[in-house]
């Protein structure tokens, strides 16, 4: 299953991601810049912020209260389809997902 990250410089990077893996883990494993996941996916650092392509947002699962609050603590201001990628698990539904990595 494939995920594509659109980097701040406009280039794209794609990778195969195993189901069950979080998109933060996948990004870190693939060296995607600006996605750090410093708290290891504990919802405590907001360093794995991505903006989900609006066409895909409904398939990424619900936004939790804590995630919603932590999205106010991201480096780049949140967008309507912002998520913390540690909170999204890869699944067959998300094959082909596109994520914008915010930041300069």
């Amino acid at each position, binding site marked *: 299953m494939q995920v594509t990250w659109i980097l701040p410089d406009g280039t794209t990077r794609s990778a195969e991601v195993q189901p069950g893996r979080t998109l933060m883990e996948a990004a870190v494993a693939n060296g995607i810049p600006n996605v750090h996941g*410093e*708290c290891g996916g504990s919802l405590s*650092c*907001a360093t794995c912020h991505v903006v989900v392509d609006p066409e895909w947002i409904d398939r990424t699962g619900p936004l939790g209260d*804590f995630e919603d609050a932590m999205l*106010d*603590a991201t*480096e780049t201001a949140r967008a309507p389809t912002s998520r913390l990628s540690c909170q999204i698990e890869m699944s067959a539904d998300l094959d082909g997902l596109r994520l914008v990595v915010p930041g300069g």
Partner: protein
Amino acid sequence: MTVWTPTDDGHADLTSHDAFVDGVPHNTFARLRRDDPLHYTEYSAGRSFWSVTRQADILRLNRQADLLSSAQGIRIEDQTEEEYLARRTFQETDPPEHMMTRIKVARAFSKGVVAGFEPQIRDLCNQILDRALDCGSFDATREIARELPMRMLGIIIGVPASDLPWLVDKGDALMANTDPDFTDHVLDRMTTDAYRLMPFNSPAGAELYDYASALMARKAAAGDTDGVLHMLLRPGPDGSVISDTEFRNFFCLLVAAGNDTTRYSIAAGIQALCHQPELLGQMKAGGIWETAPDEIIRWATPALHFRRTATRDFQMHGKTVRAGDKVVYWFASANRDETVFDDPFRVDLARQPNAHLSFGQGGPHICLGMWLARLEVRILFQELARRIAAIEPAGPHRFVRSNFMGGIKTLPVTVKAA
């Protein structure tokens, strides 16, 4: 040339604060990482515990807050339930309870918001350096490292500059509660239990409690309800509010933890400049500022350990950790793990990646103030490097007597202005 070479015999008593007075006993940690990475450490003053010393093991355990709980104390010392409840902050809670407090202040300490302090920090750094560099020879911990985080604390919690030295002395008495230079009530030599319900078992905790109450009353009277402290008082998404005790404990945490850690990071960086002379030139040349702050903070590792408590039995390295056992993550050891860091005793300002654990990376308790710490460290060294031509030691440096707070408490230096 390495910055500092450990001198312990490889068998230091990790429960003894005296084993840390010449710096972290790194030969002991190196032996444990190699031969016994989950070491059962005998502790005569309380329940013995497991010492975890490899970076990868800490990283793997740290994210499992359901298995390794913070909610029974986070230092080696044992606490009764009563003491725990009286002294706890959000550091001593597990998710999701932990998140209730974190989300109230996360934005205030976020990278984007903290970046707004840059001009103010640069200005403070130059004021501090104006005074210190005039002296030529001075204690760099006292004159530089202590000053910057102390003044930033004043800005962040909104207290008058004239109160700051008193506040920081009290914070030191908490954090360095095992060092007679910082407190008259040395924890492991104390003969009274009068303070056992106070933060860090310290009378300074009681004084900070009173200060916090008076400060909030003064702010309320002045209609000042904007700052970080007031954010804490707002109800969470479920309507819950922080208790009075928890608020005052958080105040103590801000004064203590937010202060000494940055101080000792700066001090360790200055010590490195003194002993590894190429660093100053590299700083002057620039190009390393994306990576240098984390390397300085790795080198420093101010929080030497945090403790957890196992919630159920588990196996690791062929041993069984039982539910209720204390498990200590030795960040000081992880940050010198030779399987993760090339030449770990050398400061490499361009080190990348730098998987240090000084901020408790990989778990829910990751340092709330990490962006502010990185920013303060970067700007301080940018300004220091710009303004000096040379720096060298002017006498031996001395470490805090503590197996919890790692820091150079006196650092005599001689500088030549640029």
